[in-house]
């Protein structure tokens, strides 16, 4: 077995230089809560580990009217951040339910995105918030909307020499409401069988815009655009909600696995969207 190496870059430039040097041989490590599970299960044996905890990527701040979050910020920090609670309460709620305390203390938002699990809770919330993420490398920066970042289970547009630097959340319009629900076999330490993140912009009793995101029901977190359109320009009454819920269920392409059957996931998707929209409408 080749001798593995461990690097601890002191800043972003050093980290990028190492990633350019080692490319696909290297694995970035943040909290390690996904990576080390794979290592311990012998599914991964990285030759080079690059720990990004000292690169200054741990922050939550306002830049103009945008909320900017460093990739190395932990779920515990996000869930407790007064800025996040004020500007993007959906994110605080969603990551506040990830795993359990010990997982949230280590797991980071950047790791949640790069793992690209269809069930990633942080990713679903960020997609509903219409967030962007910034990739950096020695070649410069690339910015993607979170919804176009994922290309499949465990796959993203990120290239091996790139790092997520930060996440940018646009200001939420006045009158924005959100809903979050994660359906799992128990409350802690489970991946959702289905999860839903919803942001609805209400103005004078009608919906201006809605983003409905479902987790664990497609190869990537799923933005159910058709479902969102059903709400646009309408008051959230029973008929409209039922239509949107049905559209959301129709958009899913779930699989059978030990967490739930595809049949159940599809039905539950509709039910959860309906329930959340009902809560939002009152």
């Amino acid at each position: 077995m080749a001798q593995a190496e461990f690097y601890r870059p002191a800043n972003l430039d050093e980290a990028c230089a190492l990633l350019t040097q080692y490319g696909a041989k290297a694995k970035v490590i943040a909290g390690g809560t996904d990576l080390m599970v794979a290592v311990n299960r012998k599914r991964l044996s990285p030759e080079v580990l690059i720990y990004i905890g000292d690169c200054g990527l741990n922050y939550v701040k306002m830049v103009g009217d945008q909320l900017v979050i460093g990739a190395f910020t932990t779920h515990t920090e996000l869930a407790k951040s007064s800025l996040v609670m004020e500007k993007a309460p959906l994110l605080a709620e969603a990551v506040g339910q990830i795993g359990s305390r010990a997982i949230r203390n280590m797991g980071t938002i950047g790791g949640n995105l790069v793992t690209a699990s269809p069930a990633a809770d942080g990713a679903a919330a960020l997609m509903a918030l219409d967030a962007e993420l910034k990739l950096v490398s020695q070649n410069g920066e690339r910015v993607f909307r979170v919804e176009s970042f994922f290309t499949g289970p465990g796959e993203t547009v990120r290239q091996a020499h790139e790092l997520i630097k930060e996440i940018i959340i646009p200001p939420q319009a006045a009158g924005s409401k959100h809903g979050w629900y994660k359906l799992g076999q128990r409350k802690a330490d489970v991946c959702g069988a289905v999860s839903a993140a919803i942001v609805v912009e209400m103005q004078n009793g009608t919906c201006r815009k809605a983003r409905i995101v479902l987790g664990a029901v497609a190869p990537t977190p799923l933005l159910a655009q058709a479902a969102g359109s059903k709400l646009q320009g309408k008051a959230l009454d029973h008929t409209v909600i039922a239509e949107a819920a049905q559209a959301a269920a129709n958009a899913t392409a779930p699989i059978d696995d030990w967490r739930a059957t595809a049949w159940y996931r599809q039905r539950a998707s509709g039910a959860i969207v309906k329930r959340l929209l009902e809560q939002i409408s009152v």
Partner: protein
Amino acid sequence: MPMLELRVNGRDYRVLVEPTTTLLEVLREKLLIISPKVGCNTGDCGTCSVLLEDKLVRSCITVALVAQGKEVTTVEGLAAPGELHPLQKAFHEHYGSQCGFCTPGMLLAAKALLDENPNPTEDEVKEAIAGNLCRCTGYVKIIESIRAAAAEMATAKA
């Protein structure tokens, strides 16, 4: 092999480790600190819980080198030798431990909770230990133990 320097329960250690060596492996196999247990090695059960700079973490999925220069606490470091932390005393007196396999991790989850919230409600205790599985007790006695310790610590302070 990189050199890891860390402090465990107030003592400094220096060990050679592989990049993917976990903190749990260092504690158990190199330092022979055996209270953190291998229940799953995949981050799911909580038997390997330790405090890293006073934060609850799962040592089985924590890369040891991440603890470089940091302070780790295990059950062995909860109280001075020959003494018991109120949580240890309460777990013993209130039957919060049966087979004992989950106990060290459970005690540290409880310690992390009380450090931040000295007077937790039953629901807060449940949330705080939700990531620590126990197959023996049914949790009721664990929750009782943690609340009893909290009460004792409050009285001691007053």
